[in-house]
C-alpha cells in the first residue's frame, strides 16, 4: 500500500504524518497525528492537495508596473504551474480594482484569477500626492 509521509501544518507542533492509501487513492489510515485536525490534514493533503496561487500581472498606464493577483479559492496543487503559465505575459490596462477578475476559471480550474491590489491611472495619483 502506498505510504505518503507529511509534516502536519495545522499547528506549530508539526507532527510527522504517515498516510496509507489503497491503489485507488483512498485513505486507509493516518498515523502520527496527535489530533483530529492532523488526521483531516493528512487525508486531504495525501489525496487532493490544494493551494492558493499568488503572483503579479503587468499593468499599462498605471502608477505601478504590476498588480498583485491571486486565485479566488484554492486550485489543485498539480495545477500551480499551469496557472502560472496562463497568467505569464498578461497585461491589463489601469485602473485595476481590488477583486477585479483578470482571468476567469484560470487554467481550466474552478477559480478565477483576481486582482489583490489597486493600481490607479498614472495621472490620477499625482493629484492625490498630498491628500490632506
Amino acid at each position, binding site marked *: 500500500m502506498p505510504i505518503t509521509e*507529511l*509534516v*502536519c*501544518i495545522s*499547528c*506549530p*507542533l*508539526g507532527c510527522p504524518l504517515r498516510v496509507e492509501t489503497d491503489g485507488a487513492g483512498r485513505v486507509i489510515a493516518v498515523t502520527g497525528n496527535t489530533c483530529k485536525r492532523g488526521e483531516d490534514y493528512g487525508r486531504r493533503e495525501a489525496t487532493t492537495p490544494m*493551494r*492558493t*496561487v*499568488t*503572483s*503579479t500581472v*503587468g499593468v499599462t498606464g498605471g*502608477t*505601478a*508596473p*504590476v498588480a*498583485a*493577483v*491571486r486565485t479566488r479559492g484554492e486550485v489543485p*496543487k498539480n495545477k*500551480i*504551474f499551469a496557472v*502560472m503559465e496562463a497568467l505569464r505575459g498578461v497585461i491589463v490596462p489601469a485602473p485595476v480594482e*481590488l477583486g477585479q477578475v483578470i482571468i476567469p476559471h484560470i487554467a481550466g480550474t474552478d477559480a478565477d484569477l483576481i486582482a*489583490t*491590489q*489597486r493600481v490607479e491611472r498614472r495621472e490620477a*495619483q499625482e493629484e492625490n*500626492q*498630498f*491628500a*490632506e
Partner: protein
Amino acid sequence: MDRELVIIGGGPAGLAAAIAAREAGVRDLLVLEREKELGGILNQCIHNGFGLHTFQEELTGPEYAARYIDRAQALGIPYRLSTTVVDLQRQEAGLAVATVSKGEGLVQINARAVILAMGCRERPRGALNIPGARPAGIFSAGTAQRLVNREGWLPGKRVVILGSGDIGLIMARRMTLEGARVLCVAELMPYSGGLKRNIVQCLQDYDIPLKLSHTVVDIRGRERVEGVTLARVDESLRPIPGTEEELDCDTLLLSVGLLPENELSKAAGVALSPVTGGPLVDESLETGTPGVFACGNVLHVHDLVDYVSEEAAQAGRSAAAYLQGKPSAPSRRDIPLTPCGAVRYTVPAFVDPARMPEEVTVRFRVGRGLRGAVVTVRAGGRELLRRKRPVMAPGEMEQLTLKRQWLTGDEAALEICAQEAKEGEPSCQ
C-alpha cells in the same frame, strides 16, 4: 505647522494607530509615509495568509492593507506620502518632527505627541561577515521581493538563499514560480526560524532542499555572482573544514533577520531594549520619552500582522488618552517585567498598577524551542498565572493577559517565565 499627534509610518502599525486615535477623539493628526503610497511592507507581501485572526479569512498583504487604508480614508485621516522624517527632537512642549519631501522641501512639524511606527529593516550582508568578493547579485530577500512583486523584475535565474526566515522561504517559492531555479536554502542553525507552513508550501512543494547547519563561506564572481561555497557548521556554528560544497549561481538572497528601525527614536533620546532593538515601553506603549509611543515592528519584530494591528490600536488609544489628559495617576510607579527561563523579552517592559487598565496584553518571545512548556507569572514567591503550552518556538510570538486585580502595587518585579515542565519549578529570581 502644529499638530496634536504625528504618526511616523503609514504601514499596518501607523494605519491602525491613526484609526484608533481618531476613533478615540483625536481630530488633529497626521500620518507621514516615505513611500508613494500607504500600506508599508504589506504592498510587496503578495502571498496569502494575512488576517486570519482579525477577519477570519485569508487575505494577501495588499488586501489586508486595503482594509485599513479604506478605513483611514473613510475617517478622513490626513496623510503625507513621499515624505521622510529625518529628525525627531524633544522640545519645550512636545516634539519637533523634521520632514523632507520633493514638493515642500524641509518642513518642521511641532507635535504634542508622536507614535513611532517606522517598522523594521533587514539585516544586511555587512552584518554577517561573509568573506569573498563583492559582485552584483547579492540581495536581501525583501529587496528581491520588492523587485519581483512591485517592480516586475526577476533579479536572477540560479539562486541560493542564505537564512530560512519566512521572507527567504516565501521568496524561494516566488522565484521558482517566476522561472528561476532555487538550488537550496541554507540555514546556519540546526532548525528553521520559519513557519512550518512555509517550509512545506514554499520548499517541499517545489523540492527545494533546506540545508540546516550550513552557511555560505565564500562568494565568487567579479562583476556578477558566479557561485558560492557552502559548508556545514559545528555546534558552535563554525564551518567544518572539508565539508565545502561549490554551487554555481548568479544570485544570493539573504534572509537573516530583521532589525527595528530606530534611528529617529535614538535622536529623540528614547531608551531602547538591547534585546529587541526597539523602545522600552510601559503598559500604554509609551516610551521613556513622554508623549512618544511605539507600536509594530519598530517596537519588536512580529510574526503576524494581526498582532501589529492590535498593538498599534492600543498605541493610538493611549496617545489619545495622553492628549486628552486622562488618567495620569499622580504617583507613577513602574514595576519591571523580568524575563526568565526561555523568555527573551517582554512588551511592555514595565507596568504601572495605578495607571494600567483591568487587563494588559503582554507579548513575548522565547529564545529556544520548548515542548511541554509551562508559562508562569510570579511576583516574588507568589504565582499569579500558570499556563501550559504544548509547544513554543522562537519564531512565534507568544502572549498572556496580565490582570490589574492580581497586583498589590508593592511588587518589586513580575517574573515572566517559560520553561519545559520537566525542568522543574522556575528557579530564576
